[in-house]
């Protein structure tokens, strides 16, 4: 009830941007750490890769890719809004960026299996 003022596309775009940004920021140190493993201990890295091939982690990975693409497209939308003075395009842009990130996620899923 008290929250319905948030129920409009631009607000959802904001939420998704914020959540994805946070998600990415949380994932980033882990990601870089694991990459770092690849050089010091390649078996550990291989272990990690095979462990991460479980469906649950695949799903998580997909989510991250969706996050990344959502944050990317949402970020481009914000940059356009802030720097290009685009007035009434925002809703279209919200939809476009949402669609774009879903596509990326699906493509990733298709290829990953």
């Amino acid at each position, binding site marked *: *009830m008290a929250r319905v003022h948030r129920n409009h596309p631009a607000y959802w775009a904001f939420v998704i941007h914020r959540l994805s940004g946070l998600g990415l920021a949380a994932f980033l140190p882990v990601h870089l750490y694991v990459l770092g493993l690849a050089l010091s201990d390649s078996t550990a890295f291989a272990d990690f890769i095979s462990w991460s091939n479980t469906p649950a982690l695949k799903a998580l990975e997909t989510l991250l890719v969706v996050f990344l693409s959502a944050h990317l497209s949402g970020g481009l939308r914000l940059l356009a809004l802030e720097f290009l*003075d685009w007035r009434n395009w925002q809703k279209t842009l919200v939809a476009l960026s949402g669609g774009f990130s879903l596509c990326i996620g699906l493509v990733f899923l298709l290829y990953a299996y």
Partner: protein
Amino acid sequence: MQTDQISVSIWRGGEDGKYQTYRVPRLESQTVLDVVTYIQRELDPSLSYRFACRVGVCGSCAMTVNGKARWTCRTHVSRVADGGAITLAPLRNLPVVKDLVVDMAVFFDKWEKALGSFVGDQTRDQALAAVSPADPRRREASAGIECIGCGICYATCDVVDWNKDYLGPAAMNRAWTLINDARDVARLPRLQAIAGDNGCLGCHSQQGCVERCPKSLNPTVAIAGLKRESMKAALKGELS
């Protein structure tokens, strides 16, 4: 068809009040303000609410109607009655005086803080400036000028809620019209007033302000303009 009664829950009291429910006869040409008036006149004389013009020019009658901030004198009941029920609360983000009445002082203080007032260098004894209505800067100013100060955008914006010092959409919308006013001479002080995280940079383009503004203004675009101009000022070393 409409039921012949609507059920209206209204916030009663100050910050720590509670909802009270009334049943009001449904009329054909009935606005939310009319509903509230009916309750005060016929059912509960102690109900408090604010209004003045009753036709959408003074911006006094804004409240939270079923969760969304709206001007109630121009909101027909049929547009909001959700299954014959309406819930009314005071505007968010402003201190409650009583029931549906809020204290708007901070809203206007911030308007002033954003230097939302004209500073000219001409006097009443000089001729008017010639400004073409087609001039792009004038058009930009005109696009945002018809703000009625209703506070709906301010009540809708979450950044206002999260950061008590955030100037908010209406104040910055006004600052932007002045930045584009060729006759104004306080551009730099104004950019200094709206720069930074409590000003334009605090806006995350949530656009609730645009979504809800009853005058169809676009504070997001105005604030984006301020971001660009204050950034130029920062690069030129004009901000402190």
